[in-house]
C-alpha cells in the first residue's frame, strides 16, 4: 500500500493547487534560464550565420558588435588577395529605431556583400534572399511584417522579400539583411537640411584653400547635389569577413592579417566570446543571481509546504509508528510526496513554458540541456526540501497516540 498516494488522494485538490503554485514558481526559474539561453543564442546567431573563419575589424577595437568599427573597404580586396583566402566580404552592422504605424521599430541593419552574398545562408523560413542590390530587405519574422510589405528607410522604400527565424541581436532586436550599399546608404543618411548645410560649409572651406581660389568653378560642383568628389573615400565598413580555403591552415592566414597595421583579427569563436563577454555578461550575471534567489525561494517554499504537510500528519504518523511501520516507509511517505509535488509542479511549469514563453518579448530558449537538467534539479530540490519533513516524521513519538 502506497501511503503517500493514499494521503494525496485524500487531499487531491489542495495538493494540485499547491503543485500549481510551485509550478508557476518553477516556470519563473526555468524562464530565467531560458531567457539567458535565448540571450546567448540571440547574441551569437549573427556570428554563426555568416560562417566566417576570420573577422577583420578596426585595429584597436573589438567590433563590430561590441563597439563601432571602421574598416576601409579596400581591406576586402586586400584580404581576398591573401594566399589561402577563398572569400572576403564586407560586413556592416548598424542599429536604428524608426516609427512604424505609431509604434517604435527597432532594427539592426546587416549589410550583405552583394552579389557574393545574397542571404542564401540565412535562416529563412519564408520568401527568398536578395535578387537585386537595392530596395530589398530580409527581416526577422518576430517583427510581424509580412512578405511584400514595404519599409521606408532614408526616404526610400524597401520591400520585404524574405523572413528569418530568430535572427536577433544580443538586445533581442530583429535583424534586417539588405545589400551592403543599401545599409551604408541608410546608415549615412542625413536630412536634406543637413546635406545643404554641409555643402555650404564645404564651399566655405574650399574658398579658404588655394585650390578653391584658383578654380572658382569648383564651387558650382560642390553645390550640385548630383556631384560627388572622386577623391572622397567610400564609406567604411564594420568588418571584413574572411573564409579560408579548405585544407588551408587558418592560423597561417591569420598571421598574415595580424601583420597588417590597420586591422585586428578575431576567429569565429573569439568573436562569439567577445559578444558574450562584452554584451551579455552583466545580463548573464543578473539573470544568474535572480535564478539563485528564485531557486532558494522555491526550495524554502517547497520545504515549508512539505514540512506543513508532514506536520498535519503528525498524529497519523504516530499511529502508523505504533502499528510498527518501519522508519524507511515513513521516510518514503514524505519523500514520495515531495517527488510527486515536484513532478506535478514541473509538469505545470513545462506546460506554462510551452504555452506562454513564445509570447514573451524576449526569446526564451528551452535548450535540451535545460529540459533534462530542470527535472533533475527539481528532484534534488524536492529531496533536499523534504529533509525537515523527514526529520519531523522520524522524531514523532508513537506514545503520543496513547495520550488521548
Amino acid at each position, binding site marked *: *500500500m502506497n501511503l503517500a498516494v493514499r494521503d494525496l488522494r*485524500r487531499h487531491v485538490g489542495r495538493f494540485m493547487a499547491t503543485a500549481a503554485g510551485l509550478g508557476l514558481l518553477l516556470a519563473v526559474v526555468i524562464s530565467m534560464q531560458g531567457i539567458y539561453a535565448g540571450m546567448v543564442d540571440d547574441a551569437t546567431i549573427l556570428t554563426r550565420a555568416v560562417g566566417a573563419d576570420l573577422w577583420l575589424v578596426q585595429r584597436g577595437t573589438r567590433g563590430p558588435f561590441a563597439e563601432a568599427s571602421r574598416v576601409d573597404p579596400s581591406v576586402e580586396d586586400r584580404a581576398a588577395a591573401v594566399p589561402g583566402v577563398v572569400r572576403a566580404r564586407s560586413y556592416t552592422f548598424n542599429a536604428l529605431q524608426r516609427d512604424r504605424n505609431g509604434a517604435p521599430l527597432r532594427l539592426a541593419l546587416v549589410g550583405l556583400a552583394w552579389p557574393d552574398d545574397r542571404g542564401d545562408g540565412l535562416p529563412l523560413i519564408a520568401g527568398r534572399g536578395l535578387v537585386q542590390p537595392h530596395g530589398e530587405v530580409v527581416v526577422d519574422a518576430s517583427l510581424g511584417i509580412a512578405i511584400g510589405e514595404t519599409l521606408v528607410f532614408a526616404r526610400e522604400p524597401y520591400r520585404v522579400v524574405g523572413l528569418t527565424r530568430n535572427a536577433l541581436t544580443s538586445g533581442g532586436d530583429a535583424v534586417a539583411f539588405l545589400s551592403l550599399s543599401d545599409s551604408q546608404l541608410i546608415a549615412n543618411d542625413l536630412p536634406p537640411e543637413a546635406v545643404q548645410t554641409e555643402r555650404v560649409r564645404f564651399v566655405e572651406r574650399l574658398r579658404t584653400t588655394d585650390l578653391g581660389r584658383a578654380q572658382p568653378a569648383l564651387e558650382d560642383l560642390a553645390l550640385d547635389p548630383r556631384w560627388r568628389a572622386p577623391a572622397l573615400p567610400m564609406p567604411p565598413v564594420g568588418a571584413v569577413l574572411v573564409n579560408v580555403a579548405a585544407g588551408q591552415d587558418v592560423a597561417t592566414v591569420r598571421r598574415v592579417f595580424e601583420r597588417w597595421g590597420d586591422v585586428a583579427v578575431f576567429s569565429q569563436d573569439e568573436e562569439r566570446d567577445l559578444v558574450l563577454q562584452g554584451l551579455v555578461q552583466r545580463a548573464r550575471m543578473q539573470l544568474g543571481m535572480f535564478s539563485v534567489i528564485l531557486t532558494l525561494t522555491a526550495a524554502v517554499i517547497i520545504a515549508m509546504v512539505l514540512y506543513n504537510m508532514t506536520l498535519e500528519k503528525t498524529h*497519523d504518523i504516530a499511529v502508523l*509508528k505504533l*502499528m510498527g*511501520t518501519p522508519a524507511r516507509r515513513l521516510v518514503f511517505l514524505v519523500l514520495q510526496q515531495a517527488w510527486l509535488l515536484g513532478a506535478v509542479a514541473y509538469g505545470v511549469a513545462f506546460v506554462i513554458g510551452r504555452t506562454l514563453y513564445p509570447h514573451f518579448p524576449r526569446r526564451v530558449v528551452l535548450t535540451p540541456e535545460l529540459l533534462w537538467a530542470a527535472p533533475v534539479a527539481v528532484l534534488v530540490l524536492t529531496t533536499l526540501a523534504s529533509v525537515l519533513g523527514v526529520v519531523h516524521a522520524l522524531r514523532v513519538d*508513537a506514545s503520543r497516540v*496513547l495520550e488521548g
Partner: protein
Amino acid sequence: MEAVRAVGISKRFGDGDGAVFALRDVNLAVESGSVVALLGPSGSGKSTLVKALGLVQLPDEGDIHLQGRLVVSGGEALVDVGRLWRTQLGFVFQKANLVSFLTARENVEAACEMGGERDDVRGRADELLRYLEVDHRANAYPEALSGGEQQRVAIARALANRPSLVLADEPTAALDSRRGRAVMELFRRVAHEQGAAVLVVTHDHRALDVFDGCFEMEDGTLRPATRTSSASR
C-alpha cells in the same frame, strides 16, 4: 500459556524529591485467550503500565516476557520494538486513532501488511471487518464513521496482525454505555475466539462481568481486584 508476564517493573518520572513513581515493582501475568480489566483512578499508573507492556515507554527496571520470550530486561529492550509492534501487539485507544487518510478497510489492510500478511490482504481485512460487523462501512473514511464504528474498525486493525496481546487503553471512554458494553463483549469474543490476551484499561465498572479477571492500580502498585469490590466503588 502466558501471553505477557511483567516482573518487578517500575517507572519513575522526575528526579530527587520531586520524583513520582508511576509504577512500583509491578508484577502481572495475563494468559492467552483471556480478557483482563485494569481498573484504578486517574493518575494511578494504568496508562503507564499499558505503555510499558506495549514497549511504548520502557520501564526503568524489571523484565517483560511476551509469549515466554524475554523482551525487556532491567528496563532495556532486547528486541526490535517496531517489529514487535508489527507482529505481536495490537493497540486500541480511547480515541479510535484511525489513520485519517485511509479508509476503514485500508486501515486494516495497512496493519495486515505491517504484520507480514502476504496473501490476500484485502480478504483478511474484509474478514475482520465482517467479524466486527462493520464491513458495510469498509470504504468510508474515519471522519464519516460514528464513534462506535471507528472503535470497531480500530479493534479490527488491532487484530490484523494476529497479535498475542491486545492492549486497550480506555477504549469505551468516548462511547455511550450500550456501545461501551458492546465493545467490551467484543474484546471477550476476540480473546476467546482468536486466542489473544486482551488487557483493557477501563473506568466502566458496569461491564466487569465480561472480564475473566480484574486488576486494580493505585499509586503505581497493582493488586488483584474482585468484580464485586470493584463494582461497588
